[in-house]
């Protein structure tokens, strides 16, 4: 299986589109960091405007952790697109390039092929998040330095001591990988249905955008649907920046996301097993 995964990773990283994600993150993170360098203090003053009327605030609030937290907040909107670029191409790409038939004539079971492709997609997803973590925290801490982190969570202002922040970020990035894993699995499922990668990429993004919009509109009927939308649980990384941490909620969100990953992958595997390969 490891050999198969290595082959799939080699195929992924041989394509130029794979690097779009890393380049986009590098550009996005750099732009936000530069913008914060220029406008950051004004943003901090805006965030703490009411607080400053009653309190004198001392210390460096504009630091690498705050900027990294801000960047992580953009994750749910931007990163899924970068994930689907690769995950949507995993199976459909073989059909497009006409290598499907050749692939399954090898002495490997279909389930091994589909699993190795899926795991390679998940590894790529984790690498994207890992790159985001390293680049965002590394650049942020080197430009702005370290300091306490101010977070506004459910109408409460929480300040975390700088010694209490790094582990929260690490777990938040791990949780984000899980959320992005659902996106990769969905794109993979769509990829098993069609023979062109454009369809899975657009369909996955369309679903994510629709779900995010429905989750954002505060109407009674949408509020009833909200618990059934997986996008609702992708922001669960924010729970690591709460005090006290709601472990029950994190476990629940993680299990729901894991359930979606298994459901989408299981469906994709089933479709691939029964697929009549004609190309």
């Amino acid at each position, binding site marked *: 299986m490891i050999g198969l995964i290595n082959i799939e990773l080699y195929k992924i990283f041989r394509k130029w589109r794979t690097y779009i994600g890393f380049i986009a993150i590098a550009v996005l993170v750099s732009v936000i960091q530069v913008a914060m360098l220029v406008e950051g203090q004004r943003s901090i003053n805006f965030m703490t405007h009411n607080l400053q009327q*009653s309190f004198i605030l001392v*210390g460096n609030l504009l630091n690498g952790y705050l900027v990294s937290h801000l960047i992580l907040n953009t994750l749910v909107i931007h990163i899924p697109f970068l994930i689907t670029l690769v995950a949507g191409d995993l199976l459909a790409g073989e059909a497009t390039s006409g290598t499907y038939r050749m692939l399954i004539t090898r002495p490997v079971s279909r389930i091994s092929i589909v699993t190795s492709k899926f795991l390679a997609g998940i590894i790529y997803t984790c690498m994207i998040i890992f790159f985001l973590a390293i680049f965002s925290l590394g650049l942020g801490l080197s430009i702005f330095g370290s300091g306490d982190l101010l977070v506004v969570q459910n*109408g409460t202002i*929480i*300040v975390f001591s*700088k010694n209490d922040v790094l582990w929260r970020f690490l777990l938040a990035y791990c949780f984000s990988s899980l959320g992005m894993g659902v996106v990769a699995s969905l794109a993979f499922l769509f990829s098993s249905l069609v023979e062109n990668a454009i369809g899975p990429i657009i369909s996955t993004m369309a679903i994510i955008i629709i779900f995010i919009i429905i989750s954002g509109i505060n109407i009674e009927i949408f509020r009833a649907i909200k618990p059934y939308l997986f996008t609702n649980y992708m922001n669960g990384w924010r729970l690591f920046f709460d005090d006290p941490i709601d472990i029950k909620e994190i476990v629940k969100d993680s299990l729901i996301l894991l359930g979606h990953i298994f459901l989408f992958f299981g469906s994709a595997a089933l479709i691939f097993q029964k697929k009549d390969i004609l190309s």
Partner: protein
Amino acid sequence: MKKIILLFTAFVSITFAQSKDPDLILKNVIQEFSTVKDYVADIKIKVDVKVLKVPETRAKIYFKQPDKIHIESEGFAMIPRKGLDFSPSSLLKDKYSAFYQKEDFVDGIKTAVVKVIPLEDNSNIILSTLWIDQTKNVIRKIESTTKTNGTFTIILSYNSSNKFPLPDSMTFQFDMSRVDLVPNEFNDRIEKKNNKKTLAGLVGKVYITYSNYIVNKGISDSIFEEKK
């Protein structure tokens, strides 16, 4: 004759020490505090406010007469704006009208209660009540009603071993339903309304503990300018 002089002296000193004249009481407090030209102290800040979760922080405070204040902290620190400057000259720097109300006890210490009404139109404070310990000429408690932020209370406690009128702890209390701490943009209108309801009647408290006072050793003005 000696007895008469002694009795007269005792009578005069008691009368002046426990004066009911509010202006004299306040003047004595200001005079007592004027013995402090400057000080540096370590402070420990603990915030107990429902919508604020801040770890206990330590900072260094620099004060120089009449009202220069500078705070240094390695980490993030939040210090109540109103309670920080407890210097009587600063509290009573604007025009005011004062009247003596009654005697009262704060933490078992007898105090004179003086009401102070600011006469300046632009003052945010409508009325301040000061509980003044006339034996030490220090303020033990301040209760101020503001135009915009409700009522806040400052309770000061003093260590008897400190020869200067500087507190060793301060508790700042404020009405949470009257103070918007979280930016409006982070709370939608409905949530904000609900927050107001849940915060009604709740009191936010900030505890500041002072230690390692260094008094009248001289502080360079550059420390205060640096902040600007």
